[in-house]
């Protein structure tokens, strides 16, 4: 297809670089510098989409990110579709494939358009009033139907192959928007020596200057002045220029988020480049220069393809050399549309008529059109359009002094350009938590007082006309710089010729002479909300603008009401007979325009999603074929299956090996805190339930830590290395939490104590060696420590060397066997491990993982915090009243242990559970009941916390928390399984070596 609607010359496209692309599978040609929208228009295409509810044919209506209709899906490869891209923002590249959306089977013939025939039924909120009978039909019939009709584009189906980057930046002045105001602000700030970031959502900086053919700045054409200004900024190394970058989120304390689109416009992007980048900017001052958005006119059939905003028509013509049509009707309430008319006429387009709502249009813009020979009709309104998939003619009407309308006949056209005036774009100001204020003169909401270090410049706060906008921009830039640097300079503001402010504008539905029951004038194009819908909502009692929005869905489409809000508000205001400010305004939220999820997630994926913590012995475990489990950020070896072994087999073998011989276990991940200072013992005495004042040097003690509510929060072994130095261990997952908890009390409650905490978790690699042969295995490697039980009994610690490496050697056991935990400097962990492993292997020992550790400790009735306890458990519940220092006056959580419902009878207590059938292994989490089949809603007595096959017992075993458990020894209770309840006997939680002789041997 040829570019029939391309001008013969002009625009910022590169006519020497043709670009081939497809739309809905059909090949088209455009030029480098085209957007998808401009290229389609140049090819005479207006019909590009279908609306959300009625599936009405829709055309390109804007030239910017506010586009509600021209949404397309683009996929570089299958499964990588990006839906809902706005055609005016899509830069074409060689080979681009774009698809229209929300139509089946094709854009020109869409079966969903049957909804349009049913539109008399499908009014605002109709779905709240029906689809209720029969009940089951909602989910089976109605909802699936609604869901498939709704939605716009198709979601991608395959994992995204692109990468996304993040960048944190700081600057003195962030300028958002690079039109005349933004460019002026950035220039002024940069001239004052400030660090400046200037961003703009468009591919090219310059904003409206890029399509302004009538103004001159300092004697230069506006576009040349812009180019010079941009060049000067780009040569300043304190200035960062960011095209294709949307300032989308204004957060507290001048934190602004920008989304930069790095590669989407490239035909063959370098794979080393990220697709998009999130800029997280902290700016000392922000200048918002986001311009104004032209308002549609609300007249019947205003949604026909070919109907477009007047300024968009000018942008496509002047910037892209694309004509909206060859015979154009212009409908306006505002002077700026006359500029479009003049430019179109100059380009050879037949401008049939300018239909102006105002009775006597006048002024420089009007004069220019008049002298160009364009027909101008005052008090003239468009009352409808004709044409199926593209406008063929416009009905015109004369507005009489009484407000009624009489028909003026039809005007043939292939495009209708409209302007209802301009709405200052206050989104980012509003996001900054500023309160917009209604300005009756401007007929618009404008930014009120600044809440943050922010100022608006140009038309986004109601300043129009190029000279005024530039002055405003320079002043904003200068003042922003002045706020951060004393060296601010007063800039010289250039003189403008042309570019005068255009007056006029209207809000809300226009009068017409048509049957109101039969015609629809759209306010929100994408969501198909009409003026009638807004009136219906008001009639039904929805009077708050938030209610109207939610009931009609106006302003909830992907343009977030950028085109529709003011018209909806005006219709609501008139229907309610209340002035606009009393109706309210819906809240502007982040993001300004939609932002890719990947841009928020940035680099967090796979192993970079969360740090993966591995111990110095991790690779050894991998070599040995270990399976791993995630425990907080750590990867822990779970079990070490030999070839052909199931998990059950491997764990049974590992358990038996530890009990009979010796096992080696990587305990590095346990949290470690060095507690040092003259008051170290006193401090520990306050934070653990156990007494610590009298713990001897060289001794270990198991401690329980409560939160102030009395519930167990962590446990661990504490070693007294020296009089004023303790080595504290915590659970793996609890380490950061415990350290923060201890620092909290130390800094806030007891700043008088001379004690300090230092995390040493990663200073030490920890090798646990457990089993009857543990001492024999390590003895040959240890220097300077007498390992005999007499000299180094159970629960003691010594310093010395192992394999020539300094060590803190703990004699302790979490398995019930005699054993050691060897702490060595982390970088030496692997070599010591290898040496110990050689000896372990030599005596028939084995490595074991966390699962075996869990089984062995359960056989001993030792709890695991987080498994036997769940944040609602006090020490007595798990049979550890012995660990609570009765003579202590106070410790964290002590007072809470005396609360009525903590000392009450009937609390759940830790017990052992043996199934009557020794082969049955209960599920952890299974519930315990008094009867096999209790009546529904009978509260359970408790639940199984831990359950394993015990090779030591040759049968299954479990731990459980059961109401009054210690009073139920020997009772038969029932535990639920997937197949039904099984009978169990309640027993002591200590299954193995109840006397404890083995671990002290």
């Amino acid at each position, binding site marked *: 297809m040829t570019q029939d609607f391309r001008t013969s010359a002009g625009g910022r496209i590169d006519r020497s670089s043709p670009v081939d692309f497809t739309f809905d599978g059909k090949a088209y040609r455009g030029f480098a510098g085209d957007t998808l929208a401009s290229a389609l228009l140049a090819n005479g295409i207006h019909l590009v989409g279908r609306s959300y509810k009625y599936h009405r044919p829709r055309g390109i209506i804007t030239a910017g990110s506010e586009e509600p209709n021209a949404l397309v899906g683009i996929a570089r490869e299958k499964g990588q579709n990006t839906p809902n891209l706005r055609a005016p923002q899509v830069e074409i590249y060689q080979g681009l494939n774009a698809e229209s959306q929300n139509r089946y089977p094709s854009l020109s013939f869409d079966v969903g358009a049957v909804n349009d025939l049913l539109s008399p039924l499908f009014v605002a909120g109709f779905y709240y009033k029906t689809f209720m009978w029969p009940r089951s039909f909602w989910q089976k019939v109605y909802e699936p139907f609604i869901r498939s009709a709704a939605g716009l584009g198709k979601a991608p189906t395959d994992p995204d192959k692109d*990468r996304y*980057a*993040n*960048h*944190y*930046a*700081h600057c003195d002045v962030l300028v958002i928007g690079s039109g005349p105001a933004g460019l002026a602000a950035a220039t002024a700030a940069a001239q004052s020596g400030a*660090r400046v970031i200037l961003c703009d959502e468009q591919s090219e900086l310059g904003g409206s200057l890029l399509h302004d053919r009538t103004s001159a700045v300092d004697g230069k054409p506006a576009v040349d002045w812009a180019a010079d200004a941009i060049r000067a900024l780009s040569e300043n190394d304190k200035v960062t220029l960011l095209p294709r970058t949307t300032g989308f989120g204004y957060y507290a304390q001048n934190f602004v988020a920008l989304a930069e689109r790095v590669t989407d416009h490239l035909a063959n992007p*370098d794979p*080393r*480049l*990220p697709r998009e980048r999130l800029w*997280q900017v*902290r700016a000392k001052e922000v200048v918002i220069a986001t311009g104004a958005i032209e308002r549609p006119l609300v007249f019947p059939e205003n949604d026909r393809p070919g109907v477009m905003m007047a300024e968009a028509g000018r942008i496509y013509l002047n910037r892209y050399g694309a004509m909206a049509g060859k015979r154009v009707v212009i409908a306006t309430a505002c002077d700026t549309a006359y500029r479009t008319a003049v430019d179109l006429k100059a380009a050879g387009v037949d401008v049939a008529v300018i239909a102006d709502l105002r009775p006597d249009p006048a002024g420089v813009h009007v004069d220019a059109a008049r002298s160009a020979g364009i027909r101008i009709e005052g008090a003239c309104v468009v009352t409808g359009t004709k044409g199926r998939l593209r406008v063929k003619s416009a009905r015109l009407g004369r507005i009489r002094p009484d407000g009624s309308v009489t028909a003026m006949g039809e005007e043939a056209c292939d495009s209708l350009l409209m302007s209802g005036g301009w709405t200052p774009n206050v989104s980012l100001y509003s996001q900054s938590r500023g309160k917009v204020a209604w300005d009756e003169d401007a007929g618009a909401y404008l930014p009120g007082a600044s809440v943050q270090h922010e100022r608006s410049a140009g038309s986004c706060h109601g300043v129009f006309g190029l000279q005024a906008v530039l002055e405003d921009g320079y002043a904003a830039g200068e003042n922003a710089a002045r706020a951060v640097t004393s060296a601010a300079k007063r800039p010289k503001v250039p003189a403008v010729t042309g570019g005068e402010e255009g007056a006029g504008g209207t809000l809300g539905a226009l009068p017409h002479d048509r049957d109101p029951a039969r015609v629809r004038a759209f306010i929100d194009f994408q969501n198909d909300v009409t003026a009638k819908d807004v009136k219906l909502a008001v009639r039904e009692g929805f009077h708050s603008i938030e209610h109207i929005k939610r009931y009609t869905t106006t302003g909830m489409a992907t343009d977030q009401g950028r085109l529709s809000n003011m018209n909806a508000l005006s219709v609501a205001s008139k229907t309610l007979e209340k002035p606009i400010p009393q109706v309210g305004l819906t809240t502007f939220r982040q993001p300004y325009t939609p932002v890719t999820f990947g841009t928020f997630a940035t*680099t*967090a994926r796979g*192993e*970079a999603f*969360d*740090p*993966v*913590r*591995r*111990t110095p012995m991790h690779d050894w475990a991998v070599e040995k074929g270990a399976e791993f489990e995630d425990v907080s*950020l*750590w990867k822990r070896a779970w079990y070490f299956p030999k070839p052909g072994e199931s998990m059950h087999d491997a764990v049974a073998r590992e358990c038996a090996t530890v009990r009979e011989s010796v096992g080696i276990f990587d305990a590095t991940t346990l949290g470690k805190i*060095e507690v*040092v*200072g*003259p008051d170290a013992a006193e401090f520990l005495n306050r934070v653990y339930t156990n007494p610590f004042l009298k713990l001897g040097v060289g001794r270990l003690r198991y401690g329980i830590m409560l939160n102030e509510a009395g519930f167990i929060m962590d446990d661990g072994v504490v070693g007294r290395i020296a009089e004023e130095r303790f080595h504290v261990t915590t659970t793996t997952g609890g380490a950061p939490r415990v350290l923060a908890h201890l620092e909290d009390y130390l800094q806030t409650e007891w700043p008088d104590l*001379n*004690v*300090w905490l*230092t*995390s*040493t*978790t*990663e*200073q*030490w690699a920890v090798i646990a060696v457990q089993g009857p042969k543990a001492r024999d295995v390590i003895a040959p490697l240890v220097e300077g420590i007498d390992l005999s039980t007499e000299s180094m009994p159970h629960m003691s610690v010594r310093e010395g060397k192992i394999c020539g490496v*300094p060590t803190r050697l703990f004699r302790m056991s979490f398995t019930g066997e005699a054993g050691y935990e060897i702490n060595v*400097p*982390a*970088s*030496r962990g692997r070599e010591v491990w290898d040496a110990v492993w050689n000896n372990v292997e030599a005596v028939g020992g084995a490595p074991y993982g966390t699962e075996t550790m869990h089984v062995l400790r359960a056989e001993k009735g030792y709890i695991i915090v987080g498994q036997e306890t769940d944040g609602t458990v006090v020490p007595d519940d798990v049979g550890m009243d012995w660990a609570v220092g009765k003579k202590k006056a106070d410790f964290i959580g002590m007072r809470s242990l005396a609360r009525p419902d903590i000392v009450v009878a009937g609390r759940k207590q830790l017990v052992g559970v043996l199934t009557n059938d020794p082969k049955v292994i209960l599920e952890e989490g299974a519930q315990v009941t008094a009867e096999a089949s209790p009546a529904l809603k009978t509260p359970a007595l408790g639940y199984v916390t831990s359950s394993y096959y015990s090779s030591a017992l040759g049968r299954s075993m479990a731990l459980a928390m059961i109401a009054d458990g210690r009073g139920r020894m020997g009772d038969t209770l029932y535990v639920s399984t997937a197949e039904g309840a099984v009978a169990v006997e309640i027993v002591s939680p200590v299954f193995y070596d109840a006397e404890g002789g083995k671990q002290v041997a």
Partner: protein
Amino acid sequence: MPEKSVYSANAHLSPIVVTSNVRVEEAAPLVRLSLRGGEAAASHAGASIGAPLPLEPLTSTMADKAAAFWLGPDEWQIAIQEGDATAVFERVETAMADTPHSLVDVSERNRALIISGPKAAWLLNSQIFLDFDEAVFPVGMVTRTLFGKADIMLWRQSEDIFVLEAWRSFMPYVIELLQEASRELEAA
């Protein structure tokens, strides 16, 4: 740029990132001590290592083969280029006499990277939310902060050279993200 730094690239390891404008290398092992206590303790410790401990927030001091970093109002990290951590620990600990303090050997807890080149700050800003303008983050400044989701200590050794320390298990995460961010520096 200081003539000498306690940090030097580990000659046994190949660089982690090399582009025309930035280089990331792992630093050679060091003795690191965490000192907690008051100014008296700091004074004793400074004397024993030959460099007065910095009392100004976020500053550092240098000496021959030693450096001291302010990490908190009662916390310093001392780095010494010497082989035997135990010996250094004993020497400093002995110098403390009866001053209340806590001295802990954390030599093995951290690993360090040296990030250098004109794009060093840019690279760090891919994951660190700090302003590296020299007026804000001058040479010699040291701070703990976050690199993505990892806690780090960051020191500016010179305009274009930064030292980043992290707990050892977090270092692969830091390295992966530095490599990731550096990829586009090689792109056209």
